[in-house]
């Protein structure tokens, strides 16, 4: 069987398109590359959707934590504390069983027991909490002078936030936020190992990599392939975020611009 044929059969296997059964014997390198790459689609989907949705909640959380009114501040503080203080792995399990129980009470929750939306919700809350803390830190380090200058020019309320405070916050937070984004993509590999079932063996990249390692009893091929895919993904994320960083800093003189340093923050 040619490699092109394998790609046609298994290229979209993780989405349920193509061959129904996974290969059982005769695993070629092409099989492994194709299926693990096919699984990457899930990682990319989880990462991008959670990141974009989480960005807005994170902004709200950062503002909430920075608020003087305790009715707003306390919930934001607790939300961030709960999601940053506990392992993501346990959060996934807890989320899955929570949705399972809710499903019995309210049938509308039935889709949430599937990974594509249930795990996404957990990842969304989790990344919102981590980025919320980053944005909060940045919000507190916005130079006092900028705020005073905005006051002097007659900015106030929403307009001041939108035009002055928020752009500066983003600019300050962006290097740390880049790491959070890289790290979120890495965290997506946990999904199918934590309660959420892989429906009809449609899993993510790590799911297929561990499938091959189990079947061939040889971890030295599938895991390096997975690593290669993730390094590629990391490089793409860095490039995209670097471009945004450039745009955020476009008004600054060259030497003041903040470079992004690659420092992914491990496990959550």
């Amino acid at each position, binding site marked *: 069987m040619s490699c092109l044929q394998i790609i046609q059969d298994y290229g979209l296997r993780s989405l349920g398109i193509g061959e129904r059964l996974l290969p059982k014997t005769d695993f070629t390198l092409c099989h492994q590359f194709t299926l693990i790459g096919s699984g990457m689609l899930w990682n990319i989907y989880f990462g991008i959707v959670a990141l974009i949705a989480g960005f807005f909640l994170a902004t709200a959380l950062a503002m909430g934590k920075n608020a003087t009114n305790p009715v707003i501040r306390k919930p934001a503080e607790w939300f961030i504390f709960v999601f940053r*203080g506990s*392992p993501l792995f346990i*959060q996934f399990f807890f989320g899955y069983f929570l949705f399972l129980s809710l499903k019995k009470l309210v049938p509308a929750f039935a889709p949430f027991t599937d990974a594509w939306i249930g795990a996404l919700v957990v990842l969304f809350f989790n990344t919102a909490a981590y980025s919320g803390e980053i944005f909060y830190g940045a919000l507190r380090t916005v130079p006092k002078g900028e705020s005073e200058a905005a006051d002097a020019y007659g900015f106030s309320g929403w307009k001041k936030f939108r035009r002055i405070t928020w752009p500066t916050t983003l600019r300050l937070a962006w290097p740390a936020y880049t790491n959070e984004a890289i790290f979120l993509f890495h965290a997506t590999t946990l999904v199918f190992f934590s309660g959420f079932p892989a429906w009809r063996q449609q899993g993510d990249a790590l799911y297929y990599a561990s499938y091959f390692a189990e079947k061939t*009893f040889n*971890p030295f091929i599938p895991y390096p392939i997975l690593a290669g895919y993730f390094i590629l993904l990391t490089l793409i994320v860095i490039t995209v975020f670097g471009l945004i960083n450039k745009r955020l800093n476009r008004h600054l003189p060259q030497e003041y611009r903040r470079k992004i340093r*690659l420092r992914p923050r491990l496990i959550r």
Partner: protein
Amino acid sequence: MFPYCTDPSTLEGLTWLSCYLTTTKHMMLFYSLGTVLLLLAITAPVALSFGFAGAMAAKSHIAPLSWVGKLYIAIVRGVPDIAFFLFFVIALDQGFEWLRHQIKCPDWDQPIRQGNDFVVCAAAKLPLNDAPQWVHEVYGFSLAVLTFSIVFGAFAANVLYGAMRAVPHAQMETAYAYGMTRRQAFWRVLVPQMWVYALPGLSNLWMVLIKATPLLFLLGVEDIVYWARELGASKTPRYTDYPHPDWRLWYFLGLLVFYLSFTRVSEIVLERIMRRLSHGQATAAGEAMRRAEA
């Protein structure tokens, strides 16, 4: 556990709960909490020494050694750590068996990888096929500890490498000016001073390590996640004296609270240590403390 627990079907409310929570299986759950603490207690120092070795290698003036150190630091980042956990457990196991195979059965003539099998001679098996159950468990746990140490050693190496570079260079130059050799300056000037720079990173790492402990489940150790799933699943009266519906939600809520309080306590303790270490140091925190006292 308690004398009144002999007939659970007659019990109600809190007495039922007290009996339920002290069954042999629940004791296994509490015992596995001990496993988590044991893992942390062993992994933290081992990973720290791996990290120290890695950082020393990366800082070395011998080029190949420095490459090895930097590669060790770089390779564990950029790739999801769970992949490393899954990889190392099999890779280490096969590595050890292969080594023993080379030593114990030198006249073995068949290939070790036969298709999809990994075959070593019976004497090289780890643990041996006739070993008692506890040896299997200890071996599995040791592999997990080693895996954790390798992965977290790389993270620690990165932190320590940064801390070594954060020590003011003038300090080292002064040491050389006083005639210290490279080795002397490293051990007497650099190492004692680097800890205060390393501590924020290391305490962050400790938090991360705590939060990584449930991954033991993926390494095949019967840890708290395993028992929470096991005990929480719905039980019918046929198999147990304490029938209940699906309670896994509550068990995982319990684990969530356990981890939250654990990280919170660690945070408070680490803050105290940081205060103590910053005292009298030439850093911003030390300066702030000096001002506050004056």
